[in-house]
Structure formats: C-alpha cells, structure tokens
C-alpha cells in the first residue's frame, strides 16, 4: 500500500473538527508524531496559527512551497502562486462538500422543486432508452 499524501511542511489540509471545521489550512511545522502547527493563511481561509492534532485534519492532494515556520506574508504569497483555492474548488472533494451543504439548507419548497426536476430528468432518460431499444 503506497501512501501518496504525506504530512510535510506545505501540505494543504482540511480541518475536520473544532471551531475551524470545514476550512483549509497549511502545515507549517511539525511538533511530534501527534500534532503539528498549521495556519490558514489567516487572511485567505480564516484559520489562525495554532497547534492541532492530526486526528482533526484530513490531508489533501495539494502542497505549497514554503519553508518551515513561514510567516503569514510568505504563506499567502505561496498560496496565490500555487492557486490553491481555485484548484481546491474544482476538485470533486470540494464539490461534494458544497453540494452536501446546499442540500442541507434547502427549504420544503426547494425540495419539491428538486423532486420535480429529478422526475423530469428520469422521464427524458427513459424516453431515450426506449428509442434505443
């Protein structure tokens, strides 16, 4: 079993638990086997510099080129250069998260409209399938 995502300085992570849950951050230093130092950068993702356990993080595919313990200024410059936000938003992981959020926020009327749209879609597909038979 080969690992592809490593805990390293510059690894972009998704915070899973705690007050910053759901936000992206970058590992900027490693404390020990259980915890590391992360930062947003705070002006881009809103995660301030803090020590956090790995069990609260999920590693993503993306890394940024920063040196250990980088300042927020160089970190945000590296984020802009690597265009992390755009890459993240276009990943299917991020799209699934946002669609889950959207579904949870639907009102009763919205759910009715979704139901009608799904029925129309399946009717079109069924019709096409019949033609192809």
């Amino acid at each position, binding site marked *: 079993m080969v690992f592809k995502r490593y805990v390293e300085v510059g690894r972009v992570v998704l915070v899973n638990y705690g007050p910053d849950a759901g936000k992206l951050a970058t590992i900027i230093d490693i404390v020990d086997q259980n915890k590391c130092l992360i930062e947003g950068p705070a002006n881009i993702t809103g995660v301030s510099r803090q020590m956090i356990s790995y069990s609260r993080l999920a590693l993503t595919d993306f890394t940024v080129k920063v040196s250990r313990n980088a300042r927020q200024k160089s970190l945000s410059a590296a984020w802009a250069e690597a265009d992390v936000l755009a890459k993240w938003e276009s990943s299917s992981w991020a799209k699934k998260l946002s669609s889950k959020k959207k579904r*949870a*926020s*639907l*009102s*009763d*009327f919205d759910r*009715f*409209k979704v139901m*009608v749209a799904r029925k129309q879609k399946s009717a079109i597909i069924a019709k096409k399938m019949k033609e192809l038979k």
Partner: protein
Amino acid sequence: MAPQLKVNGVTGPKKAAAPVAPGKYYPADDVKAPLQNRKAKRNAAPKVRASIAPGSVLILLAGRFRGKRVVALKVLESGLVLVSGPYKVNGVPLRRVSPAYVIATSTSVDVASVDVSSINDAYFARVKSSDEEEFFAGDAPKSAVVSDQRKADQKKVDAALLKVVDATPMLKAYLGARFSLKNNDKPHSMIF
C-alpha cells in the same frame, strides 16, 4: 429549567412590582406589592410564533387535511390561524387552524391584496340546529351544508389569492401536493 430571574430576591409574577431597595431608609411596616393585573394579559392580542405570518405557507399536521400545504391569511383573536388552500388548488376552504398543529415553512406569498377583514371568530360560530325532534329521529348523519355566504367569501378570497400564487413558478403545484416523510428524511435536521 432555566434559572429563575430574581429582582431584589423576588421571583415569579411579583418580580416586576418588587420595590427597589432605596438604600439606608426603609418603611417601618412592610409595603405590600400590588397584585398582578391579569386582565391586561387576557385582553392582549394573541401571540403566535413569528414564523406564522400572513402569507406564509403552512403544513397542516393533524385533522382532515393533514399533510396539506396551505396559505396562512391572518391570526384571529382567539389565537387560531385563518387559512385557505386555496380551495381550487388543494380542497382546503377558509378554515381556522391551531398553530400548534402546523409546521410553518420559510416560503411565503404577499397577501396584502387579499381582503379577509370581515372574517373573524364569530364567522365560524356553529349554526344553532333546529330542534330536538331531528336529534331523536335522525339516524343517518346529515351531510354538512355549506352556506352560500361561505362559498361567496371563498370565491372572493381565492380570486385574489390565486393571482398571487400564480405569480410564483411551481407554487401552485407545490400547494397541490401533500407533504409526507420519506425514507431517510430526518425532520429534526430538515429546514422547512
């Protein structure tokens, strides 16, 4: 239970009337606090939760029309909510409904153009049935006869209401459909 608020060591209904400690001086005899005026509460306008406002779409949870989605028109003096289907859309007439047996959705329509000022609690008072003879003789229950007055009012209210409902796409179909819980629905986490 939330901790009871205390003002000068007095809880409950007398709290508002409790005298403020003046400092070093206090009267030699105890000053009796005036009893609470309950008439003010009785005559006050009925309080109904904020989500039930004129124009909001409600889901009826109990009674003959359970599951129907319905438009709230106004809150009557008794605290009940006046509601209309509209009748043509889902068969619910001008009717009173208890706010406790209703889910208020976040969808609403503008009912400023619908005139329901003449409809109040007295409008729905039961018509006195004729005499005892009918009570003793009749076996088959007589089907309810809807008065012409009700039909006329229903038509008038629904004419204005349907115009507003038709303005929003799919709203008419939404009101015509019944609400039900499906598999995997978690009502405690659903936003209505």
